[in-house]
């Protein structure tokens, strides 16, 4: 989230598209109802299903799953044609006026430089024209044919309301109603918030779904303002934290990246980072990259990270592929290339696509370790449960350890919510049986391996031997000790750069923020964006002062919000080029002639003059990008691509299947189904009564939604001879499931490119363990393919068939 849950109350228009906040985030959705009740705000829901969010919406428009980009580019086209742009904002704070290289072009669904064999682009033309001074060329008048504005206008011109209807199945008049409501927020005193979640990410072009809405929000001037923003609702309680701390194949905490094989030494690694400004006087905050990286290495390896060894650069593994993401790992596992796998609080047998492939993959492991407070299907993947898990137990040679962990109620620490708040919590219950904290288990595995390396030697033990482990109790590091490492501390006295006789931070003291980080090894910091969360003043994450001066909805003294306790990202953009709030009633910070001041921590140097430094300080341009340069794999502008399994051909580029740059493994490509055999468009989703595969273990939630079902329209039910409550079989190219049928008016067939498309809704909360009735997950059916930029699986749009069946699945 760029903003906070509590800030949604400040909005004029909520657009829920690619999510279902009322269903999946009910208590956050409260702030939508508050905006509606107290400000007269409106709510629009765009979704293939009339959802619980839609039930309280002012306007609902249906859309075929997987066609959001066409809809959103249609909205941008509408705003351009009707001059509904926040011009002062767009001209000053985006790259709308920058000139693009002459070679860059788009035709028939592809940009310049496509290589169909590599399924990748040569992106050399996807960039700005640069002048002799090294800065990007721009035409403030927007007349130049190569400026971003003119390229964008041309690019989106095909997405007319008629084209939107043809692709998305959204009736033209409904699309136009949505467009006119959204366009009104181009006013300086109106704003719109975008609330989205996995309905946008779980597509083969998920990243571009989100980017397209971000472009629209920039054109409307709705980023950085109260009640505006791009608000990813996020799924798990600390999915934000685990991403921040870099528990992803290719990440280092704080959104730094692991080196690749091409970056053979530290100098090479740094040569493509620490970007210089692309426009005069801009901050380009990543110029501090080296400080963040070196401080991270000091936190990891202490004295072993020193200037002479490039701060232990070689202690970290390098990547020979873009990432060993979950899908790649399961592909390798399926090919017999993986021997061991640890699942800490993760149930991939139900959470990853193509369950048959997963079962085969797990069966090839030598060992598996699961750590969880609850039973998981993954830890029992080898156990036969009839139709619900039809495996040949005896033939599976995997050794499985199931380790019981504590749950939230029995442990202490911080979780990061989607509004980037780090909130501390305390233990209140005693663990059951022999359940142990995850920290204890990880420490035990590590210490026992270290002991083996001490005794026996082995492959490159240096990072293991030198990993900092200065904990009070080595067997169980305390949460506060770990939090202090994440915040960072001075390893040696940190001198004031302005006056070397002064010490900014004495050795051993906690840092007060990332502004104190150094690249000489004198500071250590686990995660630079968290710096400030545990200072010499104590545990800031545990602060519980819920005061909210002037009722703005920011709660600055409640817990800690990264970065630097900032509650609204890009808040400099809430003010105009002179530093005055666009909307005086929604002021966040303003320029007082000498500095930025207001309700929030400025997202800019406090003394950076308003007409000199741009608001988007993480970009070397200082502005936000309508033209993405080479940062997205599909291209600098979004394009409508169909899902890999789609009921119709891509009408703008009939020869292209799916997203042309997505990685597809050979076996998986052969398992894509076509619409002649699988004519129904399926989508998967959560229900409000359950949380993933956890609450089926809870007798209360099991009672509230006891049994697996699929949702279909009356029209499809009639065609298939199905009544509500009947058993149906649903199958794809990859598997078959049985479910109860809920027949509803909340799903209607859509007319796409002249063809009637039926939608089948498949919720995801059942398995073969727990208190609820045994059932299936949608992942038995879904394709093993992910997003081009994030490799997030395409769970939201694929093809199935459906028939009435007799009797329940046997188990």
């Amino acid at each position: 989230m760029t903003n906070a849950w509590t800030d949604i109350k400040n909005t004029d228009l909520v657009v829920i598209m690619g999510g279902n906040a009322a269903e999946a985030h009910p208590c956050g959705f409260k702030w939508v109802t508050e905006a509606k009740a107290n400000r007269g705000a409106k709510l629009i829901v765009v979704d293939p299903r009339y959802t619980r969010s839609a039930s309280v919406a002012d306007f609902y428009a249906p859309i075929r799953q997987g066609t959001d980009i066409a809809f959103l580019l249609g909205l941008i086209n509408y705003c351009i044609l009707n001059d509904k742009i926040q011009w002062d904002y767009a001209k000053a704070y985006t790259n709308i006026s920058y000139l693009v290289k002459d070679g860059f072009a788009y035709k028939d669904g592809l940009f310049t430089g496509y290589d169909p064999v590599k399924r990748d682009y040569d992106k050399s033309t996807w960039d700005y024209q640069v002048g002799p001074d090294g800065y990007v060329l721009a035409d403030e008048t927007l007349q130049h044919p190569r400026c971003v504005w003119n390229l964008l206008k041309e690019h989106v011109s095909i997405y007319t309301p008629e084209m939107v209807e043809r692709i998305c199945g959204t009736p033209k008049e409904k699309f136009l109603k949505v467009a006119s409501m959204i366009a009104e927020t181009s006013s300086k005193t109106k704003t719109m918030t975008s609330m989205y979640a996995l309905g946008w990410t779980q597509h083969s072009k998920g990243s571009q779904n989100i980017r397209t809405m971000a472009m629209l929000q920039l054109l409307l001037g709705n980023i950085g303002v109260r009640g505006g923003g791009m608000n990813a609702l996020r799924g798990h309680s600390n999915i934000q934290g685990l991403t921040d701390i870099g528990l992803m194949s290719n990440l280092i905490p704080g959104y730094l990246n692991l080196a690749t094989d091409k970056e053979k030494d530290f100098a090479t690694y740094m040569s493509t980072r620490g970007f210089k400004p692309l426009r005069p006087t801009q901050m380009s905050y990543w110029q501090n990259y080296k400080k963040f990286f070196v401080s991270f290495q000091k936190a990891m390896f202490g004295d072993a990270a020193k200037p002479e060894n490039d701060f232990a650069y070689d202690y970290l593994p390098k990547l020979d592929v873009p990432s060993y993401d979950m899908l790649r790992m399961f592909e390798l596992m399926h090919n017999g290339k993986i021997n061991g796998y640890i699942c800490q609080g993760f149930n991939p047998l139900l959470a990853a696509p193509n369950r048959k492939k997963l079962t085969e993959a797990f069966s090839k492991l030598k060992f598996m370790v699961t750590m969880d407070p609850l039973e998981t299907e993954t830890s029992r993947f080898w156990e036969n449960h009839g139709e619900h898990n039809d495996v040949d137990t005896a033939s599976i040679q995997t050794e499985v350890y199931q380790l019981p962990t504590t749950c939230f109620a029995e442990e202490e620490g911080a979780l990061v919510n989607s509004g980037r708040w780090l909130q501390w919590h305390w233990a209140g219950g005693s663990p059951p049986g022999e359940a142990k904290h995850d920290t204890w288990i990880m420490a035990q595995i590590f210490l026992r391996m270290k002991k083996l390396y001490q005794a026996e030697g082995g492959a490159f033990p240096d990072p293991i031997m030198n990993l900092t482990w200065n904990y009070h109790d080595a067997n169980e590091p305390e949460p506060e000790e770990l939090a202090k490492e994440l915040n960072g501390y001075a390893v040696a006295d940190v001198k004031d750069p302005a006056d070397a006789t002064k010490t900014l931070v004495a050795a051993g003291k906690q840092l007060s923020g990332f502004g104190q980080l150094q690249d000489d090894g004198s500071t250590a910091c686990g995660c630079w964006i968290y710096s400030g969360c545990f200072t010499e003043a104590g545990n800031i994450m545990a602060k519980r002062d819920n005061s909210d001066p002037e009722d703005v909805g920011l709660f600055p003294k409640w817990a800690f919000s990264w970065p630097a306790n900032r509650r609204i990202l890009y808040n400099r953009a809430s003010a105009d080029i002179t530093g005055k709030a666009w909307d005086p009633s929604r002021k966040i910070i303003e320029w007082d002639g000498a500095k930025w001041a207001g309700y929030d921590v400025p997202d800019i140097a406090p003394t950076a003059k308003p007409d000199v430094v741009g608001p988007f300080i993480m970009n070397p341009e200082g502005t936000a990008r309508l033209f993405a340069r080479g940062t997205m794999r599909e291209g600098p502008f979004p394009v409508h691509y169909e899902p890999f399994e789609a009921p119709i051909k891509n009408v703008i580029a009939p020869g292209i299947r799916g997203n042309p740059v997505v990685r597809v493994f050979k076996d998986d490509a052969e398992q894509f189904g076509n619409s002649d055999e699988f004519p129904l468009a399926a989508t998967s989703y959560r229900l409000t009564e359950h949380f993933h595969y956890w609450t089926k273990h809870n007798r209360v939630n099991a009672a509230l939604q006891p049994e697996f079902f699929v949702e279909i329209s009356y029209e499809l039910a009639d065609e298939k001879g199905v009544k509500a409550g009947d058993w149906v079989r649903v199958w794809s190219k990859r598997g078959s499931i049985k479910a109860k049928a809920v027949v509803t008016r909340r799903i209607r067939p859509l007319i796409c490119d002249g063809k009637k498309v039926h939608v089948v809704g498949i919720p995801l909360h059942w398995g073969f363990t727990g208190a609820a009735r045994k059932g299936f997950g949608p992942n038995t059916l879904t394709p093993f393919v992910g997003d081009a930029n994030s490799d997030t699986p395409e769970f939201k749009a694929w093809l199935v068939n459906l028939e009435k069946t007799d009797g329940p699945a046997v188990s």
Partner: protein
Amino acid sequence: MAYVTPHTASANPPTKGPAAVGDMNEGDLIRRSATSNLPAPTRQLEPVAKLIDVSKCIGCKACQSACIEWNDTKPGVEHNVGVYENPHDLTPDMYTLMRFSEWINPETDNLEWLIRKDGCMHCADPGCLKACPAPGAIVQYSNGIVDFVHENCIGCGYCVKGCPFNIPRISKDEHKAHKCTLCSDRVAVGQGPACAKACPTHAIMFGTKEDMKKHAAGRIADLKARGYSNAGLYDPQGVGGTHVMYVLHHNDKPNIYSNLPADPKISPIVNVWKGATKVVGLAAIGLAAAAGVLHGIFGNPNRVHEEEEAQAEQLVDRGVH
């Protein structure tokens, strides 16, 4: 155990015992089932109400979940029968239930998913209490709460038949009638009902009846501004008004909200049964006949189970012999 003590002890004080405010007791009763000589209440409690704003309700069932947890009930894990309602009906272990109806608005041709939290309405003129033959099994406090006193309940099921909203349910194992208490145990210590506290969108509010009516007026104005010209407050006067009220977007058509009665009234049968003689009335006509007629009166499916009827008949038989 390296860390077990909360580091903010001052922020985590132990809960104090029940507050004196609003403590509810025998002296606060204004009605008591099958009791004609109830002493006048010793004081007048401020009338309370739960306001359910259907236009804000997202049907999340947090109210059901909070109700189960607070009241320590154990609803069973049933089957899916093709709808979202689970359990499928109110039960002795499920005092409140989200009911879902998919309604096409004939004026706009748009679908409206109308979701209503069903449960005891805490009528000012409670049919259950008037129908109840067991002295003190159903009581009404001066703040409007209608509560069941299980020790006095005989499980006869007459309250079910007396209720214009078809709310009470008889447990099969302990033979007692159950329904929403408006969390009388929470109200007694100055807290609102568990469902109202949990409700994520504040669609369920709790306060004095006067305040709830004022709040409802504001909500109705907002709904009218959004085009719901018939938005209104459901506080049916046929039962003397209720201490659970609804804000409805279509107050002219309560029945579209899963058969919410447009003009609920206590069955005349209950008025005929004066005091304890009501038992006689039912004994004389036979419960099956009563059930059949009641079905006609309320236009609702009769949910009294056969075994419950048999049990009630047995009771009446015991009384006669």
